[in-house]
């Protein structure tokens, strides 16, 4: 994604060129670190001074989130089997929710006066080909508005499901592909191996990135767009929460498809 063109001014992400064809997106790097720090601090603050009779507000909130994730796991598989994945579900839902919310309040944009030789701490930034009159770098966005970040999350989850399936009962896991219910379905299952991580990652990316692009478009409308921006921010909060929940729920469903064997086999 190169950038969003609005009023002849391009907002592109500051990238460093590491190798041929591989650029490191600095804004995604900073935002990922920032959202990790925010989730970490939030959770550490919530478990300070734990108390059974008199829980503080943050401890209450975190207990509610834990029970929510336990409910998600219980819907997908038997909770006794799914208990090891509670930490994974908790991490995913908190991290993706915080990441989705980060890009909404504001943005930080710096203008480059000399577009061809923009530098960051002495390192030359990568400028895509083309003739740019005014170039500005956008440093603040949701980390999940970056396709590489969401695809990384999806790959982690899908590789985990394959590895856990092979570890628990390798023969049974491979039978899922050929005996389910007939070998005729094998091509469909092979396509599913690729379509699961792809749709998992792109769903999250598309929702959050399209939300940010729309914010940019509404901002370009000037004063007229203020009520529209209010509505769209509200809707984006809703979409961010739903997408984090859907990602976590699909994670648990894919893991349960890989490791649950007893029923009819």
């Amino acid at each position, binding site marked *: *994604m190169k950038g*969003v063109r609005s009023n002849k001014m391009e907002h592109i992400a500051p990238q460093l060129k590491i190798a041929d064809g591989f650029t490191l997106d600095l804004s995604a790097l900073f935002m990922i670190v920032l959202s990790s720090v925010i989730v970490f601090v939030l959770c550490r603050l919530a478990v300070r001074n734990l108390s059974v009779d008199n829980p503080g507000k943050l401890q209450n909130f975190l207990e509610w989130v834990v029970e929510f994730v336990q409910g998600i796991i219980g819907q997908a598989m038997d909770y006794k089997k799914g208990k090891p994945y509670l930490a994974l579900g908790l991490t995913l839902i908190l991290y993706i929710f915080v990441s989705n919310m980060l890009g909404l309040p504001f943005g930080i944009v710096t203008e480059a006066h000399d577009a061809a030789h923009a530098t960051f701490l002495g390192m030359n930034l990568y400028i895509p080909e083309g003739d740019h009159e005014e170039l500005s770098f956008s440093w603040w966005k949701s980390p999940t508005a970056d396709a590489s970040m969401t695809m990384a999350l999806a790959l982690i989850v899908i590789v985990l499901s394959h590895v856990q399936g092979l570890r628990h009962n390798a023969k049974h896991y491979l039978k899922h592909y050929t005996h389910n219910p007939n070998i005729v379905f094998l091509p469909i299952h092979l396509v599913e191996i690729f379509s699961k991580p792809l*749709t998992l990652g*792109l*769903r999250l*990316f*598309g*929702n959050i*990135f*399209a939300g940010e*692009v729309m914010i940019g478009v509404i901002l370009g409308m000037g004063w007229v767009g203020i009520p529209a921006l209010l509505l769209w921010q509200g809707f984006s909060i809703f979409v961010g929460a*739903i*997408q984090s*929940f*859907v990602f976590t*729920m699909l994670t648990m469903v894919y893991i349960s498809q890989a490791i649950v064997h007893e029923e009819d086999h």
Partner: protein
Amino acid sequence: MDYAALAAGIVFGLGALGAGIGNGLIFSKTVEGISRQPELRGTLTATAFIGVGLVEALPIISLVLAFMWQ
């Protein structure tokens, strides 16, 4: 003729059509379920929104593609 803009329009138009039909089906079944069993309203509404999150995945991917080509 600007084929890129035409492609973006067709891609997103068909995606929006799919999203509209899919969401309409989901919510029509949800309303029917609520009318049959009003006490399940909360569960059915929550499930409906989860369904929306899943159904809208591909139309939103098509939106991202349309922005890329525009």
